[in-house]
């Protein structure tokens, strides 16, 4: 494995900006690693060798001329193929979009990463139109988990998570409607951030569920996650949900040791988790000095199914014309979910939207006494590829529909959540959700940095067998 793959993104950027390392060498190394590793993993749907090397040469030229190419100079980024990149077709995991016209401009987050000096090296695999938790795509194949190729990488941003875990890129860009950053981060053993709803612009990312869509980064280090997140912040008139709040950088506060009031979510958020998952949650809680009394979010189960109903109905409405005219062009799993959503009664969907207000108040009350709440990201570690069922509520349930039981109630009300990969001994990584009040991402990063500094949360580069 090359030295670049194991360097931090921040370390690469510093070395490039000071002329110690050439961005061209970093990018060539990332492209070589994709070439070597991705035949096994299937994280990438396209690589951008020519553009990436040209962008890297431009970064090197800026440095040579005494300029500053930006805080992410030369950092390789893998982008979920949901995001527009000028001149490229945006697939969103759909075969039916393969002949769509190329994007005329970058998604806002892609543009901001480029402006910071980052280099887009690949587009990554996903569930079709982001409707899934596993990145098992009928057209573009299954993305395998780089830490155990017999397991799933998670989804829908599974390609980005796997690319980061396997050292093909230092930063992954993903989207999260019900858990699509958090679940692949958990399964693939990397850090992932779903910021507050509206914090990062979604402009130029193909929508799925406007009420619930978020975008965010993934990385192997907390500092790198902060670097990418800070680079992407800012208001954007292209996204009506994007906040007008001032940019609130987190990176300067990673080592802030002001005490955090930490609690552990109980009830719904523990009932169906495997013992290994609960052990990781409890280890993180103990390290962060969490209070022993569990925090209950009443009606979390209702919130989860309200998110489920909104997702199906809004997703179906977005794709209604295509569902009617060419249903055979969808991935079979996506088609069945969307068609069901198209048939839901309106009263159910309106009730699900109105309940958001009430659950928002429930959650707000929990944060009166806490800065960070802890919960599992998934009920089990990364699913084996052939595993079909999970035990939920004492009953055997289809695994793929229920992996998001702990992520859905939180994104339903737009809370910021950072997933930290907790590794206990030789056990497989467990994704733990650190949850904060709206707009309080800084607390999440401080908690994650402490878990990382203690050696409890970490994400090395996986070498797929």
């Amino acid at each position, binding site marked *: 494995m090359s030295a670049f793959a194991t360097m931090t993104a921040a370390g690469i950027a510093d070395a490039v900006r000071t002329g110690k390392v050439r961005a061209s060498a970093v990018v060539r190394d990332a492209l070589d690693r994709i070439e070597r590793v991705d035949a096994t993993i299937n994280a990438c749907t396209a690589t951008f060798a020519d553009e990436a090397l040209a962008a890297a040469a431009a970064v090197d030229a800026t440095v040579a001329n005494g300029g500053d190419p930006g805080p992410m100079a030369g950092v390789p980024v893998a982008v979920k193929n949901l995001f527009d990149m000028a001149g490229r077709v945006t697939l969103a995991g759909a075969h039916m979009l393969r002949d769509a016209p190329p994007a005329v401009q970058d998604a806002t987050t892609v543009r901001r990463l480029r402006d910071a000096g980052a280099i887009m090296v690949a587009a990554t695999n996903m569930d079709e139109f982001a409707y899934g938790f596993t990145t098992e795509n009928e057209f573009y194949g299954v993305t395998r988990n780089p830490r155990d190729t017999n397991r799933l990488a998670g989804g829908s941003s599974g390609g980005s998570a796997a690319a980061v875990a396997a050292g093909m890129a230092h930063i992954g860009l993903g989207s999260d409607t019900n858990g699509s950053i958090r679940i692949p981060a958990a399964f693939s053993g990397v850090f992932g951030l779903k910021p507050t709803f509206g914090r990062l612009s979604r402009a130029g990312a193909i929508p799925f569920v406007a009420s619930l869509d978020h975008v965010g980064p993934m990385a192997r280090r907390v500092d790198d996650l902060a670097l990418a997140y800070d680079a992407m912040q800012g208001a954007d008139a292209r996204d*009506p949900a994007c906040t007008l709040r001032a940019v609130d950088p987190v990176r300067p506060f990673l080592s802030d040791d002001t005490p955090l009031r930490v609690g552990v979510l109980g009830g719904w958020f523990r009932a169906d988790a495997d013992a290994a998952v609960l052990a990781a949650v409890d280890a993180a809680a103990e390290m962060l000095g969490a209070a022993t009394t569990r925090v209950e979010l009443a009606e979390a189960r209702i919130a989860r199914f309200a998110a489920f109903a909104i997702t199906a109905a809004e997703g179906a409405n977005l794709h209604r014309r295509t569902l009617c005219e060419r249903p055979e062009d969808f991935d079979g799993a996506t088609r069945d979910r969307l068609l069901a959503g198209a048939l839901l009664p309106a009263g159910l969907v309106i009730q699900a939207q*109105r*309940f958001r207000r*009430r659950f928002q108040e429930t959650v707000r009350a929990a944060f009166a006494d806490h800065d960070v709440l802890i919960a599992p990201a998934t009920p089990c570690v990364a699913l084996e590829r052939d595993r079909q069922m999970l035990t939920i509520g004492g009953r055997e349930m289809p695994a793929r529909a229920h992996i998001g039981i702990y992520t859905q109630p939180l994104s339903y009300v737009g809370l910021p959540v950072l997933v930290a990969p907790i590794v206990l001994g030789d056990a497989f990584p467990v994704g733990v959700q650190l949850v904060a009040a709206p707009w309080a991402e800084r607390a999440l990063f401080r908690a994650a940095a402490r878990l990382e500094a203690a050696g409890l949360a970490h994400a090395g580069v996986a070498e797929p067998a």
Partner: protein
Amino acid sequence: MGMKPLPEEKRPFDRDEIAAYADAAARLCGIAVPATSRDGVIANLQTILNNSAALMELDLGWTDEAAPVFQP
């Protein structure tokens, strides 16, 4: 002594009931469900509808409005 049956309105919908609803709703909504998708659509509807009873029973207040643009 057998278990007391659930009141009719509390009982989960069975597959046949969901199938009848799906077929009627598809026709009324102008959506042609391909034959290969019918079982999957029914299964998805069953999951959503049978888990939404508690949501539909909530007595939300008049001021619990769905927001045009949600602010967390």
